[in-house]
């Protein structure tokens, strides 16, 4: 199938997924009475007398599908609503929090994927040797660590014990001042990239210092996961006929492992890496909350715990979009790694 037609067909899949996700979230919020939903818009007891007017104005007492229809209509006209937890339109909120999350993902994703693939390959190539046992224990332990607790312990050591070494947040106060000053152009609002573009060393250093702990926290579980997957995939690959052939041809073990076996073992790892990246870009709720790192996940947490319906729906659209997009990219990468896979079809 032609690539363009395939991409278009897959993007059309977006609509049922987005419709389903939002319909579901919308349905949940409808469990609240109109009065409860209206009271989310008032700021004090004195404004309670306005509730009937708010209900009437926004049609909060109308039937479920009419309200949902109104929302869809608004979204199609580019209006995602107002995110009251951060006091800005939902659309602006997504764009203002996304760079922070992308910055985190930008550092964590390569670390996760390369460490996972490297360690997994080593473990499989030395099955039942010390390397395999040590990495297995590390992986199972990392996989069992509660993310939030790991974050706290890291902070206890690197912020408490070594006082102020790796602080939470995105930038320290003086550097935040520099970033917002006239002499510093914010091209992307991804601090590290902006610092490099502005040739500003101190800002870059400060941004990196704030990134280390969140990146470690978020990577630990994921490296463990990718590593185990890579190991089992690699073991399967090493047992195949073509590996035997390669060995019989007298190729060195390094080439057999790295070229013949690994290439085929990568396929399932690519899929899962795609999901991991989607998860990272969709916001790491726990990590971002612990380190007061204001990204998408932090915003979604604020929205979900304070029932900011417009924000939750906006977030749902965003993650649904991300999910479909990442799936598509993963499928396209497949065809590069495994030429037998044809888009829209099965393995020949």
């Amino acid at each position, binding site marked *: 199938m032609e690539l363009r037609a395939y991409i278009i067909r897959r993007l059309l899949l977006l609509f049922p997924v987005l419709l389903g996700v939002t319909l*579901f*979230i919308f349905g949940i919020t409808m469990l609240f009475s109109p009065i409860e939903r209206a009271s989310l818009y008032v700021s004090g007891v004195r404004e309670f007398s306005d509730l009937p007017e708010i209900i009437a104005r926004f049609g909060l007492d109308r039937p479920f599908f009419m309200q949902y229809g109104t929302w869809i209509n608004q979204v199609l006209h580019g209006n995602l609503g107002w995110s009251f937890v951060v006091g800005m339109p939902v659309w602006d909120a997504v764009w203002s929090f996304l760079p922070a999350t992308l910055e985190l993902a930008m550092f964590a994703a390569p670390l996760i994927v390369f460490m996972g693939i490297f360690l997994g390959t080593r473990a499989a190539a030395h099955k039942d040797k010390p390397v395999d046992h040590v990495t297995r224990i590390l992986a199972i332990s990392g996989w069992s660590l*509660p993310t939030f607790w790991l974050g706290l312990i890291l902070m206890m050591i690197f912020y*408490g014990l070594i006082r102020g070494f790796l602080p939470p947040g995105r930038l320290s106060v003086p550097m935040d001042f520099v970033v917002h000053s006239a002499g510093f152009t914010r091209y992307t609002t991804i601090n590290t990239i902006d610092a490099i573009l502005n040739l500003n060393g101190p800002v870059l250093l400060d941004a990196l210092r704030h990134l280390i702990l969140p990146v470690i926290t978020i990577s630990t579980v994921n490296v463990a996961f990718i590593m185990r997957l890579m190991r*089992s995939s690699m073991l399967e690959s090493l047992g195949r006929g073509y590996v035997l052939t390669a060995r019989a041809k007298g190729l060195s073990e390094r080439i057999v492992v790295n070229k013949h076996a690994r290439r085929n073992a990568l396929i399932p790892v690519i899929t899962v890496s795609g999901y991991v990246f989607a998860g990272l870009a969709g916001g790491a709720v726990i990590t971002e909350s612990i380190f007061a790192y204001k990204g998408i996940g932090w915003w979604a947490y604020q929205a979900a*715990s304070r029932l900011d319906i417009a924000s939750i729906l906006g977030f749902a659209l965003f993650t649904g979009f991300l999910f479909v997009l990442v799936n598509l990219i993963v499928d396209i990468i497949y065809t590069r790694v495994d030429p037998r896979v044809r888009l829209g079809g099965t393995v020949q």
Partner: protein
Amino acid sequence: MRDWRFTARQLAKNPLSLIGVILIAIFLVIAIFAPLIAPMPAGQTDPYMIPRDGYWAEPRPPSELHPFGTTQGQYDVFYGVIWGARTAFRVALIVISVSILIGIVLGSLAGYFGGVLDEVIMRITDIFMAFPWLILAMALVTVLGPSMKSVLIALCVVWWPSYARLIRGDILQVREEDYVEAARGLGASSARVIMRHVLPNAIYPALIMASLDIGAVVLSAAALSFLGLGAPEGYADWGQLTQFAQNWIIGPMNDPLKYWYAVTIPGLFIFFFVLGWNLLGDAFRDIFDPRLARR
């Protein structure tokens, strides 16, 4: 029966899985004998509520009265982690049995009948899986009102789709077997074929996977509690105890690790509990790998 004996023999051969079994056994003992290990103070009615020793915010270090110290609000850490083991098992058992039940019903309908029904059920699971589970669970708990019951409901809602998919896959394989064909040929009803012939042969891997999900469920419940969306304040729950310590990770200038007990102990309980199940799970995966020949 042969399956079980084979499994047990393989497990005994692997030292890591043995450690896992021991860890799980320790937690089982703690959970069962919680009333003896940490007896409920006289005058208290709900054993799951952690007794508190005053209302002072600052945690106090381990003492004779409080072997693991007290955390923020003077809740006794020792009592909390011991009864927290019961909470952990309870949450895991309820969430997993409810989700697997939903998974069995929807998974077998989708797998056995196929067609439109299959398509609809699988697209529904897609929708659930496209949305980050934690945010979905958080929104659900917020809507239902923070309580233990809400956490259980929210976790079931986010957990069942993976079982439905797993069971559907297993059923698809079994559906084409000769004995199923034979039963259908003899005129057995669909319900009877599913209940008597398909399910019993398709369910074993799903049950194993489910039992190993206990660690993951407890980890998720703890994350929700940690975010303040879960058990009421003072309920014996590891996640909540960790949340209490969140404001105390950094001590005063001259003693930065002053509150280590409040921060580390509840987390260690979560870690070892989950580790036990994951060690066992890792061994199981090796055993059930179809490429490793049996007997």
